[in-house]
């Protein structure tokens, strides 16, 4: 990254709700320590939903700050739509002229490329009206060829890698 920082002082939000499904006793079952595992042995299919996808991308780091996309409210749960084999994600850059947005979108793209089954088609859009070159950005992020070309660029790839790094926990 060239030394320029697009937004030196972004707002940080505390995570709205604790992430993940509530495991505490919610009163739905009668007994407090009904074993959760019991219904794991069943063949019940748990489909991939918006929450799961949010879980995948919320821990991506912003390329400019030591904060996650969740903390900067760049992505949020309602901005993710899952429809059978189609995922649509909207993200909001912190400022309208943010030059790091392409990289950001690319990070999300790579993350999902690696973490979702191949049957999904993923569309990534900037939130309408949140970026000056919205149209160009959307085109860049959803064009297979362009994404592939961007990932050929070693420098770009390694900086994308950097933003995904903290996620896996074992670095």
């Amino acid at each position, binding site marked *: 990254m060239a030394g320029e*920082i697009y937004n*030196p*002082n*972004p*707002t*940080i*939000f*505390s995570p709205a*709700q*604790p992430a993940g499904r509530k495991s505490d*006793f*919610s*009163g*739905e079952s*009668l*007994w*407090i*320590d009904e074993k959760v595992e019991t219904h*794991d*042995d069943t*063949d*019940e*299919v*748990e489909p*991939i939903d918006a929450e*799961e996808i949010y*879980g*995948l991308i919320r821990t991506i780091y912003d390329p400019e*700050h*030591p*904060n996650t996309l969740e903390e900067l409210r760049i992505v949020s749960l309602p901005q993710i739509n899952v429809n059978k084999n189609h995922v649509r994600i909207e993200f909001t850059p912190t400022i309208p002229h943010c030059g790091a947005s392409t990289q950001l979108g690319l990070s999300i793209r790579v993350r999902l490329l*690696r*973490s*979702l*089954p*191949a*049957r999904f088609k993923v569309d990534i859009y900037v939130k309408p009206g949140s970026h000056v070159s919205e149209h160009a950005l959307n085109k860049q992020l959803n064009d297979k060829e362009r994404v592939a070309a961007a990932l050929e660029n070693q420098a770009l790839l390694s900086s994308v*890698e950097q933003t*995904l*790094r903290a*996620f*896996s*926990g*074992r670095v």
Partner: protein
Amino acid sequence: MEATERLVRTWMASGRDEEVNDLVAAIESDQTTLLNLVKALGEYLTSEEDKDRTKGVELLSAVIKKCPAEKLNRQSVRVLTTFYCSKLDDIHTIIPALQGLHSLSGSPNFTSVEATTVVKGFFSHVTMKALTQSVRFVVYSTIDTIIANHREALKGLDTEFINGYLALADGEKDPRNLLVAFAIERVIILEFDISKHVESFYNITFAYFPITFRPPPNDPYGITSEDLREALRGCLTATPLFGIMAMDLFLEKLNAGSPAIKRDTLQTLAICFPVYGPATAHSFSRKLWNSLKLEIFQPVDAETQGEALKAFKVLIDTLYSEETVDIIDLTGLAKDACEECIQILKEPEKTQAKHAIKVLCTFVATTPSVAKYAISQTVPHLVQLFRSPDEVLTRPATVVLLAEVITASRDVSKLQNSDTDTLLGPFQDDILAVLAAGLKVSGSEKGALQGLLPLASAPSVLSDEEIGFVVHCITEFIQASVDSAVSSRDEALELLGTISGSNHQHVSSQTLPILFSSLPDHPPPRDDSASRQKYWLSLQSLKKLCRHSELFETLVIRLTTKLDLIWPTTFESETEPAAAYAHAILKTLGQTLSIKVEQRHPDVAKYVDRLLPRLFNLVLSTVLSTPDRRVDQRILDVTAQIITLVVQVLPPSRQQSYANNAFGALLTGNINQIANGHKIIPEGVKFHPLDKSASANQKDLILLFGAAVVPIEEEVSIPVPDLSQFLQSLVVWHYSHADEEAQKIAVEHMIASIVNKHVDQLQDFLTANLNAFWQQEIQDPSKTLSHRQRAIVTWSWISKALVVRSHPLANDFIDHLFDLFGEEGINWAAAKALGQIGSGDEVLTKKNHCIVKVLHAQRYVAKVLPRIIAGAKDANERTRQTAHLVALTSLIKSIPRAAYAQELPSLIPLLLRGLELPDPEIRVNVIGTFQAAAEGDPSEQSIVEEHALTLVSSMLKNCMVDQMPAMPVRIAALKYLGVLPSIVRYNILHPQKSHVVRELGKVLDDPKRVVRKEAVDARFTYSG
């Protein structure tokens, strides 16, 4: 004399150490003298042959080095010194001469006269650049010794010495020499008058800053860059005269360096400021602040930011060390920086505000006047911000910032051991008001609790009244959060718990009544999940708060009363909500007790009279009413847990009387001694759970008696006429009368615990009775397989009771199990039992007063593991071999890794075969073992290297849902797959990379969420 000459001649030819030793011995025993040696060496010392001269001086130095100090009198030291100095200008003799001088410099007879001669000799004849490292090291060491012993003499030389040394040390590069040189330089700078040479010293010390030396791998000298850094810092901080020159250099390094250099510079700055003094700090304060600001507000990483803050703290300390001005007059850097930060705090929700508050917290830790100023600026600002109606949205961020200031201020007071808080004192009311309001603002609860915690945990910061207010606010918050299930509830309870540790009145008078009253008197109906969650939350809160003995007493009284009220008469499906409610209450009691036992609270024991009879009363009131009313299994389990917890902590005498009562009830039906409470127990129904005609609901109660017997100590006698017979009757009951698995398990626990403690009284039972048991229940092929498998479990419990105390009889029991390995159908059960025997459990523990020998698991492993390995390798009989393999996987899972670590290389091929067994449990065990090895020492990690490819393909097979339906196996396989790249060399796995990534792509579509998550993690480690 002749002998000396002979030795000298021999040495000149041989160069061996022996002659040197002989010479030294001769000098020691006065057979010869140094003078004789010099005479004998005469021709060599002055020889025209370069080689001979070198050797001559070398021998002399070698002898002097080993020569005892008392043989070197003043005269000889003087002569030798002069002699050596004269040899310094001869390139062929300089090396041994320097060594000789080094030995001499340590002699007590080496006077200051010689000291000056030697250093002068060095300065005029020694050219450091021409010498090798080891020789230069000798020079430095000699100067070091002289400077240590004859400092005054050297001071006499003044400029001559300083200039000479500067010339000598200039350009040194070897870290070994530098360590000595830095030590010498520190002494010179500290003790000598260097005012005219500051720049020269600056040049020979600061030239090395920052240290970038990295020790080569396997460095035999063991010098780290840290050693060098410390030594150099010793020089840099030796005089304030460096101040001005140094600051420029530091600033330059700080602005341009790598993160490591930045950190080094910041640390060095922090120790230099106090030495260089306020004047220097003052003239650079602006520049320093500008540089530090960059590191703080745009940090490279958190560590560097921390160092920058530390350096900044020292800077402020130094600047304001002498001032005790009133805060109104505070001027200079602190004021300006403070104002700058406050300016940033106007936008509390931004990233920069987090950094700014760190700076302000740093101020709090500096001098009292600065701290006071910072607090007087920050706290009112934040308070005002919080109150401003325009800033409603930023309230959560504001409260967090305020909490940080409070924590910083409390940390300072804690360091000063003061109970009162003079810093926050004037603003305490405002702070409390903001925090209390913060508790009610959505999003800022967490911050408010963070701020309250340091205030409330200090004993006397808040007055009793204020504590009451805080408790009131938190209670309100908890009450409100019952409805909304806010995540900060735990923190709030933690805080109340802290308060109740020192001051429980407020909690018991304000919080508890509200929590108790939120427990309904009637169980919520089946479809009312909200009320159910509510009572569970209240119970969880009570569990956290009621650990203090008085509060716990209240808890027991209130909850037992509640139990009496809601206890269902029957346990059918229509009363299930009541049963679940009762279970939740009992669970709360059990969990609280368990924490109290862990923390060794002395009041637990008294609940043998207050709680246990009440529980028995409840249970018996149901059981004895009609034979078909059975108490719910889950309720019995948690009741049993409570009984065990209380009996565990009883003193032996009390245990004895409780055991008497319990056995009285169990054997003769005398229940009055153990049950006492408000429920009416129907008269006339005989209680005899061990009788063969007993109803199922009576038999269930064996769980409770088992729980009472298990923790009874060895010295307490079991009140039965014949212990062997009693155990035998239990075994019979187990196989003929027990009709629930839980009953059988309870009996097994009871037997195991008694066997463990009273093995010596049980000869009959352990030999004759159990032999019969073996033949009739396990060996007899006419019994069903499941019956025989069940009997093996009983067998393994008894074996384990013996193994845990390393009793010799255990061997017999284990041998029997091996005998079954050849028999299809039960060999797997026997094999798994071997693993079960080695594993830890909740019954045979020290807490339950069992006799547990140290290293018993290791002994057991040493006994069975070799046998199992041999069996698993023996391919003669497939059935036996497989059974051994099963035993291996089951054993290895249950024992500590250290116990088998040495066998690991030979185990791996066997474990890989274990992965082929169809049993999912075995596969999980095996993968778990690999995982454990991966977390171990690097030497263990590399063991799998040669099997890496096999492992990869096997794990891939085990993580596909279509090939492995059992989810735990899939998860374990994925986890291990994710670990492999970190333990196996890159070149081995690299060819597999694309294959693994492709295959894992399929697993990403696993039907289970947990599996998908692991697949994502694993795939990430390969695709990165």
